[in-house]
C-alpha cells in the first residue's frame, strides 16, 4: 500500500540509472542517514559506540572490501585479517612519522599501501583458482602477521610489541586516543563508511565493476569478450585491499586504540569478515552492512540473554554462544544461500503487494 512505485515515471536515462529509483527508497535511506548523522550522536554513550556502532561500522567497511573481491570478482580470500593489519600498521607508521599530517590523508595513504600489498598477494590469482587460491591467500595472512610481530621497525621497537594509537585531530575534533568522545569517533567512522559505500556502489555499477562480474561468472568467457583478466583481477585485489586497509586503520586507531598482531589480526578475523560477506549476501553492498550487523549483534544479544537473563556462567555462555552461532550460520545458509540482502529483497517484493497479494 505504501511501498508502491505506481505513477513514478522516469523521463530520462539519468533518472533510470539513479542508485535509488523508487521515491520511497530515497525517503527511507534519507531518513536513515538523518537519524544516523543527526540524532544518534546526541544519545550515544561509550558502551553503544564501542561495543556496537563503531564495531558494526568498521566490520561493514571490511566486509565491503571483501565483497568487492569475493562477491563481485569471485576470488575467495582468507587474508583479510592480514590486510587489515597492513592498514593498521601503515597508519601507525605514517601518523607517528608525520604527526602533523591530516588523519584523513593518513587513512587514504594506509589504504594505498594495503592496495599495493594486496596486489602483490593477488598475483597468484592469475594462475590459481577457487579453493587453491583461498588457501594461497592464507600465506598472506600468516606471513603478514608474522612480519608485524618480528620486525621491530613496524611497531617502533616498543618493548611490548603493541602499537598504541596517538591522539590525532580532524577539523579540530579529537578522534583517536582515549580522550576522544564516542560521538565524534562514531561520526568520523560513519562519514568514512558512508563515503566509501557510495563509492563502492558506483564502482561496481561502472565499467570496471562489470568487468569484475564477468570474470566472476566465467573467466574464460570474459577473456574472450575482451576483458583482460590481469587488469580485472588485480584491480579487484587493489580496490578490495584499499577498503580493507582503511577498515584496518579505523579498527586500530578509532575503535581499539591499541593492537597486537597475533590477537587483533588473526585468522579468525579473516573468517569473521568472510562470514559477514556470505551471511550478508555475496555481491551486494547492502549485504555487507546487514552481515556486519548480524555477526556483531547476534553474539552480543546471545551473551546478554544468557548471562544477564538466564544466569549462565560467562564461560559456559561462551561455549553455548559459539554453538548457537555455528548453527545459526548453517540455518541461514540453508534458508537463504544468497544471504540477508536477498531476504530483504524478497521482503520488499512482498511489501509491494501488501495487503492484497495475489
Amino acid at each position, binding site marked *: 500500500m505504501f511501498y508502491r512505485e505506481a505513477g513514478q515515471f522516469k523521463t530520462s536515462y539519468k533518472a533510470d540509472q539513479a542508485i535509488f529509483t523508487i521515491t520511497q527508497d530515497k525517503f527511507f535511506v534519507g531518513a536513515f542517514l538523518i537519524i544516523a548523522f543527526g540524532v544518534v550522536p546526541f544519545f550515544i554513550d561509550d558502551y553503544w559506540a564501542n561495543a556496537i556502532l563503531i564495531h558494526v561500522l568498521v566490520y561493514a567497511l571490511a566486509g565491503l572490501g571483501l565483497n568487492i573481491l569475493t562477491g563481485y570478482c569471485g576470488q575467495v580470500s582468507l587474508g583479510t585479517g592480514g590486510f587489515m593489519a597492513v592498514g593498521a600498521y601503515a597508519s601507525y607508521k605514517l601518523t607517528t612519522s608525520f604527526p602533523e599530517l591530516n588523519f584523513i590523508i593518513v587513512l587514504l595513504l594506509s589504504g594505498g599501501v594495503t592496495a599495493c600489498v594486496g596486489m602483490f598477494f593477488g598475483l*597468484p590469482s592469475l*594462475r590459481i583458482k577457487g579453493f587453491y587460491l583461498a*588457501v594461497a591467500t592464507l600465506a598472506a595472512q*600468516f606471513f603478514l602477521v608474522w612480519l608485524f610481530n618480528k620486525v621491530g621497525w613496524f611497531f617502533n621497537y616498543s618493548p611490548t610489541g603493541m602499537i598504541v594509537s596517538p591522539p590525532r585531530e580532524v577539523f579540530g575534533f579529537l578522534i583517536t586516543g582515549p580522550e576522544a568522545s564516542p560521538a565524534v569517533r562514531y561520526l568520523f567512522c560513519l562519514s568514512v563508511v558512508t563515503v566509501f559505500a557510495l563509492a563502492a556502489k558506483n564502482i561496481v555499477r561502472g565499467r570496471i565493476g562489470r568487468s569484475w562480474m564477468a570474470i566472476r561468472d566465467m573467466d574464460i568467457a570474459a577473456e574472450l569478450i575482451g576483458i583482460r583478466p590481469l587488469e580485472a583481477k588485480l584491480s579487484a585485489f587493489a580496490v578490495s585491499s584499499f577498503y580493507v586497509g582503511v577498515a584496518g586503520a579505523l579498527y586500530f586507531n578509532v575503535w581499539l586504540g591499541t593492537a597486537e598482531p597475533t590477537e587483533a589480526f588473526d585468522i579468525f578475523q579473516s573468517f569473521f569478515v568472510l562470514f559477514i560477506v*556470505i551471511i550478508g549476501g555475496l555481491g551486494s553492498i547492502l549485504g555487507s552492512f546487514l552481515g556486519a550487523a548480524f555477526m556483531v549483534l547476534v553474539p552480543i544479544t546471545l551473551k546478554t540473554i544468557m548471562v544477564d537473563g538466564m544466569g549462565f556462567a560467562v564461560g559456559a555462555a561462551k561455549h553455548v554462544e559459539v554453538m548457537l552461532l555455528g548453527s545459526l550460520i548453517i540455518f541461514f545458509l540453508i534458508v537463504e*544461500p544468497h544471504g540477508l540482502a536477498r531476504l530483504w529483497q524478497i521482503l520488499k517484493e512482498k511489501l509491494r503487494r501488501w495487503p492484497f497479494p495475489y
Partner: protein
Amino acid sequence: MLFFLETVISGLMAGVMYSLVALGFVLIFKASGIFNFAQGVFALFAGLALYDFIAEDGWFYDLFGFALPVWLGIIATMGVMVIVAWLVERLVLRHLVNQEPIILFMSTIGLAYFLEGVGDILFGSDVKPLDIGLPQGASDYLLDNYNLYVEKLEVVAAVVAAVLVIVLAIFFQKTRIGRALRAVADDHQAALSVGISLRTIWVIVWSVSGFVALVAGIMWGSKSGIQFSLSLIALKALPVLILGGFTSVPGAIIGGLIIGVGEKVAEVYAGPFVGGAIENWFAYMLALVFLLIRPQGLFGEKIIERV
C-alpha cells in the same frame, strides 16, 4: 650430518601427522566436492569422546561406574562419529545439495563452530592427556646404535598412516562400496542414474573421514594431549592439501612429507636469520610456489576448463 638427518626424520614424522588430517579432507572432497573445514574439529571431537569413554574421570565412568577398555572405547567412539556423520548429512548436506562450493565450505565452518561448542559443553575444555598405551619417548635402539633421536610415537604414527592408506586403497579399489564412492566422485548425476544412493554414500564417506579423524585425534592426543588447539591442525593440513592436490590420497601423504621436512629444515637452518617462528607461514609459501608451477597441486586431476 647427524643433526641434519635428525631434522629430516622429525620433519618426515611431523609430515605424517599432517597427512593424517589431510587424508580426511581428501576423502570428503573426492566424494562430495565439499571442502570440509570441520575436519580438525572432527579430530578434536573424536579425541574428546574417546577420552570420556576410556578414562577414569570421563562421564562414562560417572554414569556406569566403570571405564571401557581401549578397544571397546575406540569402537564406541567410531559409533559416535557415524552418528555425527549421519546427522551432518541429514541436517546440513541434504538441504544444501547443488549449492555453490563456497556456500558448502561456509556451512562446514559453521559446523566446526557448532561441534566445538558442543564438545566444550559435553566434555569440558581443559587439556586431557590421552593414554591408550602407545609407546612414548625416544627409540632406544636407534639412540644406542646410531645416536639418532627418534620418537617412538612418531614411528607408530608413520606405521598407522601407512596401514591406513593401504586399507583405504583396498577399500576404494576392491569393495562394492568403494566402487560406488569412486563413481560418485566422478559424476554425481551419472552415479545417481545407475542406482547409487548419494545420501548413503555421503553418510559412508563422512563416517570414513570421521574414522580418519579418530586416528588423527588419537595420534595428536597421545602426542600433546587433547585440547582446543587440536582443531587448528586443520590449518596445518591446508598447505599439505594444496601441495598434494585436493583429490589425491597419495598426494596427501607425499604433500605432508614435503611440508613436514621443508618446515623443519627451514625452521632450523633459515629461521635464526629472520627471527624464528617461520613454521607458521613457511608451509603456505612453499605450497604457493608449488602451485605457481602446477596449479592443481602435485597429484591433482588436471583442471580442464571449457566455455
